[in-house]
Structure formats: C-alpha cells, structure tokens
C-alpha cells in the first residue's frame, strides 16, 4: 500500500466510532455565526488608532490629496528609490517621480531580482481590505499592489487604503476576500504593523526582516 492509501486507511480505522451515514453538519455541528460585524464604534477612527498602536504612521486625507501625501511620506522616510506593481495609479507614479525618487515598475516577465529589490528603499502599494478591530491591512497582490516580495524586501512600505475597504472585523474581511482566494486563486498577505519580534525576553522590537517602517494613507 502506498503512503497515501495507508494513512487514509489508518484514519478510517481510527474513526470507527464515527457513524458513516450521518451528514457532516449533523454529526459535528458548528454553532458559530460567520461573517459578523463587531461594534468598534467609528470604524475608520478605530482602524487608525489600532494601526498606530503597532507604531505605524497613519495619515487620513481626501482622494485628491493622496499623491501629495505619498510624496510627503517618501520625504519623511528619506526614500531615494521606490518600487511599485505595474497597476499602480498613474497619479501616484507621477507623485513618486515628482518627489525625486527613482521609480522601478515591477512587471511580469521583467521582475526585479531579490538582490535588486534589496537595494530599493520603499514600496508604494494599494490594498485589498482592512480590519478595524485588529488594525490589519490585507493585500491580495493584484497589479495595484504588486507581487508579495515587493511589500516585503524594501525597508519602508507606504500603503494606501480606501475608507470603503475598511471593515469592522476579521470575519467581515475574510468574507470580503473569499472571492480573491476561491475564484482568483490569489495569495493574501495580512499586515498588522511593521515587522516585529518579541523573541528576546518578550520585549517587542519593530523591524526585523520585513519593512521597518509602515506608512498608511487612509483615502476618504
């Protein structure tokens, strides 16, 4: 018997006490109500407060000001070079170049190597969703965000999230992103603050391997 058949046979033999003729939902019910909102008060304000809790910088601005805020962020972080996915808003591109940063556009077929990416100071990305109760931003890595390595290797991540992408709870975000995974097979990255560790004496240090600076722009 090959390993697969043997493991499955072992599982079935171990489960002799489980009746075979009963539907899963009836045999082992789950009472949880999925996809619920959580009362967090003002969703956007809570989101902002909790992202700041992770020692990230958060700016809230109207849509027209986003390019200018991106440029300000680049300046604040002393960024000399920026990488973006190939679907990033044209106005953001102009703002990045206008701020004097060298711009790399990561395109399928012409992707930056890991070594090249390591020389870039920052990435500018859109977002897929956000959760207020946990201060989490989720990327599904469509072209306005870029592939997974972009938001990881450079030391600063500037992320623009629209207010209508922010939900109260983790369950709502999971519901919202279901199609990205189930239909489009996209990878997801959940980001809650800058990279951090508590491995030495449980003392939290921001910035280990991922970006040490997280700069969030909430677009109203």
């Amino acid at each position: 018997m090959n390993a697969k058949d043997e493991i499955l046979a072992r599982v079935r033999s171990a489960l002799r006490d489980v009746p075979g003729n009963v539907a899963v939902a009836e045999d082992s019910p789950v009472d949880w109500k999925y996809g619920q909102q959580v009362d967090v008060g003002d969703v956007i304000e809570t989101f902002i407060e909790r992202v700041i809790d992770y020692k990230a910088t958060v700016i809230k601005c109207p849509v027209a000001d986003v390019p200018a805020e991106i440029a300000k962020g680049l300046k604040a972080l002393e960024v000399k070079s920026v990488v973006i996915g190939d679907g990033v808003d044209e106005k953001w591109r102009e703002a990045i170049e206008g701020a004097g940063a060298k711009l790399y556009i990561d395109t399928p077929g012409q992707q930056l190597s890991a070594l090249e990416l390591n020389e870039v100071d920052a990435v500018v990305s859109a977002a897929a969703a956000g959760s207020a109760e946990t201060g989490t931003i989720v990327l599904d890595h469509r072209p306005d965000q870029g592939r997974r390595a972009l938001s990881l290797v450079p030391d600063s991540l500037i992320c623009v999230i629209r207010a209508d992408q922010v939900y109260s709870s983790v369950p709502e975000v999971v519901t919202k992103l279901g199609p990205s995974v189930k239909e489009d097979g996209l990878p997801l990255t959940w980001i809650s603050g800058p990279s951090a560790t508590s491995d030495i004496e449980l003392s939290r240090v921001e910035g280990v391997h991922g970006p040490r600076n997280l700069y969030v722009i909430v677009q109203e």
Partner: protein
Amino acid sequence: MTSTELERLTPAPPPGELVDSPRFQVSARTSLTNTQQRANLKHATTTIRNKRARVVGEVADWQALRTAGEQIKNRVGRHLDEYLLEFEKNFTEAGGIVHWARDAEEANRIVIDLVEQTGEKEVVKVKSMVTQEIDMNEALEAARIAAWETDLAELIVQLGHDRPSHIVVPALHRNRAEVREIFLREMGRYGTPPPDGLDDTPVNLAGAARRHLREKFLRAKTSTSGANFLVAETGSLVVVESEGNGRMCLTLPQTLISVVGIEKIVPTFQDLEVFLQLLPRSSTGERMNPYTSIWTGVSKDDGPQAVHVVLVDNGRTNVLSDPIGRAALRCIRCSACLNICPVYERVGGHAYGSVYSGPIGAILTPQLRGLASDVDRSLPFASSLCGACNEVCPVRIPITDLLVHMRHKVVEAKKSDPPHIPHTAEPQLMSIASWVMADGKHLAWAGKGTALVDLILGKGFKVKKFGPMPYPLSRWTDARDVPMMPEQSFRTWWKKNRGELA
C-alpha cells in the same frame, strides 16, 4: 572543537535523541537548579500571560469563539479522510504537488529528495513544530544539506547548539546577555558576522539577526516551512508569523516545501475568521500578528513556481484512534497553556524531553510517540492538575481530563510490561490497596492494624509523627510529615458510640 563538528554544515544540537531523555521528574530537578533560567522563564511567562489576558478581554464573544474553534476542529478530526482528499484535490489543481508521509523517516526522505532534485545544498526554514518533531534539520545535515533557521528565536537556539524550550518563543529560556554571547561566538562561523561593538539591547540583537539572515534569504533557492492551517475547500496554506522571515522564505525562493501534520486542516476558507482571531490573541497576546501569508498552490508570476506539501502522519492517526485522547489534535500550537502553567513556568521546556512541552506536550507527546519510553510514561504526571490550562485553551481541550486519561493508560502500560522489567512498587501497592478496598471485612482488618501501630509506636514509644524515612519512603517523607495513626478506627469508634444503631 572536535573534527566531526568542523565537518558539519550547521551548528550541532546537543547529542542524543529527545525520546531517550530521563523521566520528567528527574530532568525537572536539574532544571529547577538553574536560577538564571528560572528568572528568565518567570519574566517571560508573566509578561506574555498578562498581554494575552488584556487582548482576550477585548473580545466580547471570546467564549463563543473558543467553542467555534473546538467544534470546527472536532469536525475536522471526525471527517479527516474526506478533508485530506479535498485539500489534495484543490491544492493539486492550483499547481501544487502533495506528498504523503507515514512517519518521520518517510517525511525526511521526501524532503531530501525534493531538495536534491533542485541541486541545492541549503534551505532556509520557516519556524515549524513538525519539522522539529521529525528532526528534519539533522536528517538534511546527514544528507549534506544545510537547513538554516530564520526565526530569531530558532536562530538563537540553532547557533546556541541548543534545543527549543517553548512552542512559540523557543529561546524563552535565554536572556539578552546570553543571546549576545551566542551571536558573538557563533554568527561569524555560519555567515555574516555580528556588527562590531554589538550590545545586548533587543533592538540591536534583532538588527544583527537581520543582517546575518538577509544574505541567506537573498541567495536561497529552496525553502521549507510548516503551516498553521490547510484549507480543504480552497487548497490553501496559512502561515502566521511576526518577523517577516516567513514571508522571505515563502516568497523569494524558487522551490517551497511545506511539511504539515495531517491535523492542520480547516474545512473552509471562511473558518479562518475563527482561528485568525483565536491564535494571535492566545499566542503572543496581540490583536493580530504582524504577518499572515495565505497561498494556494502556485501563484503565477509571484513567488516559488515549484510548491510542495508533505502531509505527515507520524503518530497522529494513533492519537485519532482514541476517542478521548483525540481532543489533543485540536491544538493550534498557541502555547497559552505553557505560559499559564505553574509547572512550565518553573522547570521550562527542556525537562519535557519533547518538542511539545508544557501541558499540551504532556498529553500530546505520549500519544504521538507511544508509551514505550521512560520520559513518555512520566509526562502525564508533569502537572498538578490545577486546570489553568483548560481555561486558556482557545480550542477548549480539556487538558487535565486528558492528563488523567493518560495517567490511566500509563498504569495499564506498566501492568502489561513483561514481568522481568523492574519498576516502582506502585502497581504492587495498588494491588494491595485494591484488596483492602474490595471488601468491608478487609477494610475492618486494616483498621485494626492501624490501631495496633498506634498502640505500639504512639502509646508505647511516644512517637507523635513519622518524620524523614529511608528510601523509598523518603520520596514522600522528605517534604511531608505523616501523622501518627489514630488510636481507633472509625468502625471501632462507631461501635462504641453508636453501637445501638448498628
């Protein structure tokens, strides 16, 4: 330094197999004398417990969430064969390749073959309990492949020629000064050395690890990981982490090999809403961990284009076959039970002789490995049964019930040992006790016996209590006085005082 050590590619762990460790009670005695470690453990577990309590308190429906975690995991266990096949089908359709491994040896063989097919001589690793369990690093080392741990705490453990002592924070037993010493001594031998003048502040130590590992991340072509969850419905894997080392390993190399225990399944993508709330709050006491990665087979133009999963049994079906014991398979490796445990807090993880330590280790390890070794037979007794672990477990594993259940199994196992194996007098004493309790006449006879002891020693020799006694009774009397036997048994007293009612 011996010549064999020089030939190794990675730092050697301490010699010997974990399963050959001494009994818990013996190792605990040694651990308790390590005052530095006790101080480190107390500081760390207190900090993390308080953080957990704070963020769990924020969640209004925490108890309902725990029940959901319990019910979903029970559903998985009771229908595991169906979910494994569903996962395999969906992961394969998404371009991934599934391998099955009956035991540690088979899992390691598969990983070695996959790495050898890439032609690479090293892998970068995401922290993973199951790869510790199957001792994958040493199997790779024996095949001349270097496995580099990239989680900060695992790096401290690996460079320190040490073993992990905690499920989530494996270097919990080390303080900053010890970490600095390890980095200064070892880092340069295995890659980028620490910066000059490295001090012992956590931020600078983390900075040294970042520099040391960056070179390895950027050149790595192959990586290994575990997974916190496998989603049957979509064929997705989930890795929950903090530092970004996981993302580096999951994203930059060309080949990714994830080694995952078969119990890690959740049925649907939507079920993740339960576990992505339970795990970070229970584990590191955060509302959410910094990074969670979810991937489904191969992602076009993004990350590794050869993506494997090795589904590992290695004793899990044994656990599943015990309808009571199988509750331990619900575990999501959060370590809340370790952090709350008064025993773990004092002795630390090494005394458990297992990669799974603390209360969950005490019930899971003897089920996974069986009850053949001394250490596995001792683990169910590594608890005062205080029950604090039951209250914090995010999937409501009744840990103390399982400890008692496993104690029973240990006694049964001892009884069925061949007669030439000597062990403690406990089974004999239990047989005597069983004879005494079985019949009222026997008990009356024993009562008279105790009165006789009082008459001779208590009245005759004026002994008021039994103090320290020689071995083996010393194991009880070292810490306790035994009071003198009563001068009459309850039966005698009843006859005298209530005789007319009898």
